[in-house]
């Protein structure tokens, strides 16, 4: 895996280092990353089936800002996903 472009993402503001083995870190990148980091992740996901599966699982279960965007991205990589799946509501799930 080549995470170039992700290490400096603003999404990692509360982390000392990038550890993409962590689902929490991956969720932070999906939720709060910028396009540069997303492009690096997409590049990695293209040849990493396990990473694609983890992204899918996170998007389907954790509120992220643009969940259908990520499902469409996975579909564009050939993953069999329901792009219009009903997903956790970001605002309801994160409201206090």
């Amino acid at each position: 895996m080549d995470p170039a472009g992700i290490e400096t993402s603003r999404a990692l503001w509360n982390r000392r280092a990038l550890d993409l083995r962590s689902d929490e870190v991956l969720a932070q990148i999906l939720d709060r990353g910028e396009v540069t980091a997303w492009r690096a992740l997409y590049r990695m996901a293209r040849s990493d089936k396990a990473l694609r599966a983890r992204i899918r699982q996170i998007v389907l279960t954790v509120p992220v800002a643009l969940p259908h965007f990520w499902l469409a991205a996975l579909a564009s990589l050939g993953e069999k996903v329901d792009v219009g799946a009903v997903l956790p509501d970001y605002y309801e799930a994160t409201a206090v």
Partner: protein
Amino acid sequence: MRRARPLETEEAAGLCVPTLEEMARIKAWLLATRHTVRDYLDTVVLFERPGESGVERAMRPFDEIYRQPTAASPLAEVVERLAAAAPSDVAEIDLRNYRGLQPPWNDWHHVVARGRYWAQVVARVTLEDT
């Protein structure tokens, strides 16, 4: 100022009009910001006309043209809205009796299926290195 550059235009029958690619960008911007059934429908139909390579060409500069102070990607928002297919007024609009639409565009299920197809194409444009 919403845009970082002027509209791309051409002359048609003596009139200065936006190019087809520019029309697609304008409608996509409305989908991202206004998010009505009309915006969804117009965006999808305008994507059909130039086809996949035309949409790729049209949407590649979208984030640069509609640059945000937060560095957020409006193009990712367009993909989200195409894929989610949940415009704000979807419960109030019946496409079967809407603005004289002709088949297949008067069938919401068809419109959504095409919108989700285009969501994948535009997601790739957003995320592929240029």
